[in-house]
């Protein structure tokens, strides 16, 4: 059995645009293919096939006056922590001395699953005698947060999946800080307690959030698209379809309707394929569901006799 590459890679949207422009060179020469328009369409189509093609990112930010700014291209919140008791040290040996326990780099998040939003910054959780610390390593500077409280956004579906992936052996026995929140047009998030109102300890604090983001390369300032042959072809057909529709709607080419029909066939085929590819659970997910169902059955029927 051959070995397939399962993890989803990304490539810049400019590559996809160049491929489409090459295919429709006649329209490209007359300026029918607007790159901005393609980038917008790619974003819509990626939403259409599902958030699973989006990236998971993490960020450490400062809370000022109970609120913090959400990152650019924020889509949904996975999980987060309010971090207290910050310690900063320059190199590893000093840190060990200060924290009195080794920094366990085994729990480092896998690069292909979690992309750090600040390039070379790495964030991981350190088990220090049963108490979990959050360690943020950037170049030689290490910031350790000795007290972390999970930030649970009330009234929202809390998915612990991403958290268990980032830290498989962590058993967080910490009471979460159940906070209310206010998304202001996805620009900032305001933290307050539903009963007590604004919490004094969170007025000025550090927050770690893990979120779903639009795939975006912050260094080159460019939108990214999934690097998968089926998804790429789906996006290509979608772009070509949009270009031809615009040509027809603006009366630029009388023969475009026939060309659109040709593209429509390929688009439909690859649309089905891409949706199926993205929404089919992989073996690990299916195994997890099977395990969960089995445990549930055991608890319901066998456990009662135990």
């Amino acid at each position, binding site marked *: 059995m051959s070995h397939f590459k399962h993890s989803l890679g990304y490539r810049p*949207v*400019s590559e996809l*645009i160049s491929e489409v422009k090459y295919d429709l*060179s*006649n329209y*490209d*020469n*007359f*300026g*029918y293919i*607007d*790159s*901005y328009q*393609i*980038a*917008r369409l790619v*974003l819509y189509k990626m939403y259409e096939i599902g958030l699973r093609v989006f990236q998971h990112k993490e960020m450490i930010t400062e809370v000022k006056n109970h609120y913090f700014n959400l990152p650019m291209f924020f889509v949904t919140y996975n999980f987060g922590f309010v971090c207290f008791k910050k310690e900063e040290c320059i190199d590893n040996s000093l840190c060990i001395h200060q924290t009195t326990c080794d920094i366990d780099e085994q729990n480092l998040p896998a690069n292909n699953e979690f992309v750090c939003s600040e390039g070379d910054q790495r964030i991981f959780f350190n088990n220090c005698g049963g108490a979990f610390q959050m360690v943020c390593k950037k170049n030689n500077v290490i910031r350790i947060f000795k007290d972390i409280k999970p930030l649970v956004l009330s009234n929202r579906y809390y998915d612990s999946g991403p958290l268990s992936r980032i830290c498989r052996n962590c058993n967080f026995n910490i009471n979460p800080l159940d906070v209310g929140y206010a998304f202001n047009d996805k620009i900032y998030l305001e933290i307050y307690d539903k009963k007590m109102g604004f919490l004094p300890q969170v007025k000025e604090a550090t927050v770690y959030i893990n979120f779903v983001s639009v795939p975006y390369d912050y260094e080159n*300032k*460019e*939108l990214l698209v999934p690097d998968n042959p089926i998804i790429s072809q789906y996006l290509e057909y979608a772009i070509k379809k949009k270009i031809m529709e615009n040509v027809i709607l603006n*009366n*630029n*080419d*009388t*023969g475009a309707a026939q060309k659109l029909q040709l593209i429509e066939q390929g688009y439909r085929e690859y649309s089905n394929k891409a949706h199926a590819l993205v929404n089919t659970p992989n073996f690990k997910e299916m195994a997890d569901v099977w395990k969960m169902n089995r445990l549930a059955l055991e608890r319901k029927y066998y456990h009662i006799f135990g």
Partner: protein
Amino acid sequence: MTIGDVVSRIRNIIKATDIDDFITDRFIWSLVTKHASSVITKNAQVLSLSDSQELYMEIPHVKLENAIKIEDCGIFKDLSDLCGELIVKKSTEKLPKVRTVNGRLMMNVYSLDKSVKFQQTTFSKFSNVVKTRYYKLYHDVYYILSSDYYLYILNEDIDAVSVEASFIDAFDSYNLLQKSCDDDQLITAQSLPSCIPQSQMSEIESMVLQDLFNRLKVQDVNDLGHDNKSIHSS
């Protein structure tokens, strides 16, 4: 195919000598440009315009200058808040008239090393583009050929660009080409590309010849002098 080739082709058919004082090269070329655009536009759907390199002519170096701020704000009436941020460069010289097909310019603008191709747009389209939130998703460099044939480059601070276009009258680019070339490089008007594809030449030739014969006929009739019995003469 150069301007010289096109002119000599027609001159050969009518067997007119170079010293003919009525049928000058300039006159023949003016008839060719008159008919060429209509023929090319008519056959645009059949022609693979992008692949036909004969249609295009290159000006390797078009110098740009900073557009005056007040002026560029005047152009972008809807974008008064963007005026400060936006980089607007303008060509120092006017460009020759460019052929259009379905309202689109047959023109490509590149960076000098040809690695980046800029995006064709119009002032109204660009003002709509910058208003959307998706404008920041993809950084593109736009160019606009204004109605007075100045070239505007938006979003890129560069000193010069390379232009490839299908000019209605390739001869108009003569001055611009001379400025962009080295001093020791001699350009003659006859050596300039005609921007006419070989496949369309026969149709253009027949139209030019018909036009030419009609004119010559009128000329002959006028030369008859007083013996001509015109309906207008009393």
